[in-house]
């Protein structure tokens, strides 16, 4: 216990426990995630997502849709994808309460920026990042409305929570109301109105077409691209510290930072949650498994640096400029 607050002891990569798994609509479950020992989870803001590495080895991204005033719990909503590549099927069919998942992030490419007015447009499971945004818009007293579409009412998650917002929320199941009436919801752009949209590709395409001539920054969307990333490894990997001439093995239960410390190579760090950026280290060879909250997609793709307090390796071997 005392060790955990001891500054020199680096944290291991964070693993979360599935504290609850709840069916909330047809084909949608929510997972409640907590630290196995009840510790605080890394801070996040609306629009953030996490990478979850499932026991089957797949890594998938999910928007956080809980309440960040509860620092001990994450909630994500997971749709069973019709053409699932395994991640959502695994969560629906096999993941049980008590199971462990590894955490990357949270990262935020879809931050809620300050505005007096918001229009939120959600399609299906795209409602998840918008839920905490709506809560926040309500909290700061912004003028907001939500248009929420889905295949049919039974497939649309969180209707009970949204009901509390009254007529600020328009629920438009396709089998009752047809396609979303974007022309009514997105008339001419207004500087005082930010539009946030998340949902399936065709909805995002339609919204982007509709807003193509708008000034930049008024429409903000999030699109989860199914990326064929190298699967992360749960086994140990080698790290070579080229300048120090040291090679070491990072076992699954240690962070790179911790393994380096054990080997007597100290890298300055601070938050040890992949947030502050202090331990940034140059990667000379190998492919990092980024689990920080700092790099954007482009920076991750470069693969030229990593944050050893949380990030790991996709390849057998990483070579660092240390």
């Amino acid at each position, binding site marked *: 216990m005392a060790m955990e607050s001891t500054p*020199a002891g680096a944290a291991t990569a964070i693993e979360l426990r599935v504290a609850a798994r709840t069916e909330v609509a047809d084909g949608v479950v929510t997972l409640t995630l907590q630290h196995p020992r009840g510790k605080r989870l890394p*801070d996040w803001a609306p629009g953030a997502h996490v990478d979850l590495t499932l026991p089957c080895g797949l890594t998938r991204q999910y928007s956080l849709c809980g309440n960040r*005033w509860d620092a001990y719990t994450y909630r994500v909503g997971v749709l069973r994808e019709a053409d699932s590549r395994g991640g959502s099927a695994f969560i629906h069919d096999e993941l049980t309460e008590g199971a462990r998942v590894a955490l990357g992030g949270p990262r935020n490419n879809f931050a809620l920026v300050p505005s007096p007015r918001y229009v939120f447009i959600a399609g299906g499971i795209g409602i998840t990042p918008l839920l905490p945004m709506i809560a926040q818009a309500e909290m700061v007293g912004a003028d907001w409305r939500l248009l929420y579409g889905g295949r049919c009412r039974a497939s649309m998650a969180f209707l009970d929570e949204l009901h509390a917002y009254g007529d600020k929320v328009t629920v438009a199941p396709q089998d009752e109301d047809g396609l979303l009436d974007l022309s009514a919801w997105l008339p001419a752009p207004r500087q005082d109105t930010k539009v946030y949209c998340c949902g399936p590709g065709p909805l995002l395409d339609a919204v982007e077409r509709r807003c193509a001539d708008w000034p930049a920054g008024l429409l903000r969307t999030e699109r989860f691209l199914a990326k064929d990333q190298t699967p992360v490894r749960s086994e140990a990997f080698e790290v070579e510290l080229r300048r120090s001439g040291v090679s070491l093995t990072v076992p699954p239960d240690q962070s790179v930072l911790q393994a380096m410390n054990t080997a007597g190579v100290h890298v*300055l760090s601070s938050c040890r949650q992949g947030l502050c950026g202090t331990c940034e280290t140059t990667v000379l060879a190998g492919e990092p498994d980024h689990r920080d909250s700092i790099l954007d997609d482009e920076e991750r793709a470069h693969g030229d640096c990593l944050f050893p307090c949380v990030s790991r390796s996709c390849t057998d071997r990483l070579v660092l400029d240390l």
Partner: protein
Amino acid sequence: MTSTLPNRQLPSTDVDPFSPEVLEDPLPMQAALREAGPVVRLSRYGIYAMARYEQVHAALTDWQSFQSAAGVGLSNFRYEQPWRPPSLLLEADPPHHDAPRAVLSKILGPRALRTLRADWFADAEQLVDQVLAEHEFDAATQLAESFPLRVFPDAVGLPRQGRENLLPYGDFLFNAFGPANDLVERGRPHVAELSAWVDEQCRRANLEATGFGAAIWAAADRGDITHEQAPLVVRSLLSAGVDTTVHGLAAVLYAFATHPEQWQRLRREPGLARVAFDEAVRWQSPVQTFFRTATTDVDLAGTRIAEGEKVLMFLGAANRDPRAWHDPDVFDLSRDPSGHVGFGMGIHQCVGQHVARLEAEALLTALAHRVEHLELAQQPRRHHNNTLRAWHSLPLRVHRAP
């Protein structure tokens, strides 16, 4: 003072952490507070204090329970009018804190600073060559002040004129987090003028087209923050970006002047410059204290802190807590200072820490290449500030490397 303390044994003391005696040497008081308990009542101000690493770290990271928007000084903004519009970063809570923080984190992030690195290293060499023309000099003014004042305002994009206002403005700001004592009163006659100058520099028209300031305004154009927020975010750079680094640099120079074997180690291993700076920040803690305000009744280490109560966190004491650090009073490059709270911790952790480290790395690297040995030429003098562990003078004698 009524409170809902369940714990009648809560230790209490009438010590004044802002008295001249304590500001001159805070270490004995810090040790006494740490020993007294995890939470201590400061009867003179009717507030709670924590001086142990575990509690300070917990309060810094738990923004849900310990808010900043009621002010991070003694003054409680719920009841008292702040002396200037509150900071959008330091004196704000989520959700309002999110956007300004996200914008500034990116602008001051390590990746964004790469473009400054070569220039700042060259600037440091030039300054050090100039200063080393003498064997004895005041490192507080000629290095610790000169270097940040040379590189940082340029990086922000400030005009040359009026930069002499930056240090006194920061000095007043950091004094104003404490009680309205002599230090605050002495600064008060100048504050309107200093504030007016600072506010004026935050306007877009007064900032260079490239630089941190312009980048903040560009973020407003993208809608990531509002145009009303932009000048206040620029103000944060001018408020927190100068005095803190000045006294951090002075701290590391003082550390080396008094630990010659550590200087030899840095000369052998110049790659330790960043570690050295953070170890000095831990050891001296240029920012000594910040306050938080309880958002709800919080039970902390057996003490009930009632909603709305002020809590004083002794960062400097936490950084020397023997419960967390081995031989905490020793300045030692062998130590891993990671995890110190000299830059704070959590969502409000110093957004400029990478800037400070780069400045330190540049200055120390230039010195390590040129100076074989440095020592105190005279007894250095402290500068008293309610928040900062600061220096008035740091007279050094140096022996140049052959």
